[in-house]
């Protein structure tokens, strides 16, 4: 599994987590280059369909980053996103897709370090979990 490089699709909220990722970059913090970052206006705008599409098309993990409780630019988007992801993890968990592949984190615009750590941890965990088997299944 040494040479397995997990691919992570990261949906980052415009107001907090994307800026956090940006800060990680401008601060020259080193973290694994395994994420493909997608900026969204709010973590709650991430419909389960986006996450599922990524997983079914072979992404090894999906990271959703939103503002900290109380900080959402749209008041409550992050709380709603949290529930939505909880539901998604419950459903895919019961269908045999490891819930750990989908992660939800509160990362603020000032938390470049937390973003870098989150990605590093996730990459490590996904390495242990192994590649997403759906990647090679033609019927998915």
């Amino acid at each position: 599994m040494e040479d397995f490089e997990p691919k992570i699709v990261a949906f980052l909220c415009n107001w907090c987590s994307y800026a956090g990722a940006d800060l990680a970059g401008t601060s020259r913090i080193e973290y694994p280059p395994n994420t493909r970052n997608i900026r969204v206006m709010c973590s709650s705008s991430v419909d389960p369909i986006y996450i599922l599409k990524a997983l079914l098309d072979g992404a090894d993990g999906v990271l959703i980053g939103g503002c900290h409780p109380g900080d959402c630019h749209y008041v409550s988007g992050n709380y709603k996103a949290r529930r939505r992801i909880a539901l998604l993890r419950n459903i895919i968990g019961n269908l045999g897709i490891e819930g750990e592949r989908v992660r939800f984190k509160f990362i603020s615009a000032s938390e470049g370090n937390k973003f870098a750590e989150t990605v590093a941890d996730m990459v490590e965990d996904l390495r242990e979990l192994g590649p997403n088997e759906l990647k090679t299944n033609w019927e998915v």
Partner: protein
Amino acid sequence: MEKTYRAEDNGSDSDLKKKMIEQIVSPLLAEEMIDAILLPRRSSGGGITFSLFQEDDLQGALFVSPVQPVNAASLVSDLTFKEPGDRVAALLRPCEVRALIELEKLQQVDLDHLFIISIDCLGTCEPELFREMAAEEDDLLERYDKALREGDMGEFPLRDACRFCQIGRASRYDINISLIGSAEDELLLTAGSEAGRDFLEELDLKESALPGESQELLDSIAAEREEMWEEELAEFGSRIEDIPGLIEVLDLCRTCHNCRSACPVCYCRECVFETLTFEHEGRKYIEWAERKGSIKMPSDTLLFHITRLNHMGLSCIACGQCESACPVDIPLLKIFKHIGERAQDYFSYLPGRDVEEPMPLTTYEEDEDFDLS
């Protein structure tokens, strides 16, 4: 407090339908409490469909119907979603009332414009099967009525959804036709709202207790079916506990989306799967095929079903219309009931119980703990 009334017996041939028309529907229409009433009706081809009646002759109408042609909650949505009339009445089964409560939370029906006449239900047959059976047997409807009153559906080939359904009586109604446990041709009406009670009081109907076996029958049938569902799950649950298993079960899916259009709680007015988002450029498919070596066509079958589970699984009231609508007999009811109920348990949510119970995804608590790491 709920009160039950007994409709008058006007002569020996006054069956349930006659009583309903004379004592309930005619007064409702005459006093302009309702503009029209939605009821199942025998169709010219020998099947059963729904019909919206404006006059009280109710020709061909059925109150006790062995078929659920569609989940009538969808029809109530058609009737009340946009510029509703003053008020319509609809005869609804428990699963239709539950779908209605979910739709009310989604603001896709307007219960203020509806007079709910619910009816006890212990199950329905597939429409095409009923038509075949009815062609062979003249007194099929009478036999069904009797089976329902006695709480013994053993001889009817019920749909999967109905075989496992544990809710024989609605929890919200203006008037409920309390059929289970009642005597032949007896019409017992339970008022469940102020409007229902006022109406029945004015009709001067005699108050009457529900027979004791009514609730007993409901409870024992529920227990029996729960056990049956557990047994079924022991086998079926293990078949879909991973994606390759789910793929096997969905094997024949032709992605027609019938399940979605038949679903009363699939709430989007326009489904994303029917939009340009899923009209991919031809070269896209080739790219995907390149990546995996080959892909299934039509594509996105699995994405469709798992997305649907995410979108409406919490509201799934297990009416099984998805399965009835499936041209290739995929056990959709079992998939959605199984996965849906687990998600509902996770959020301690019971769809269709109460309009005041918020849908889990429309609410939140600031301080709540889900394992999302």
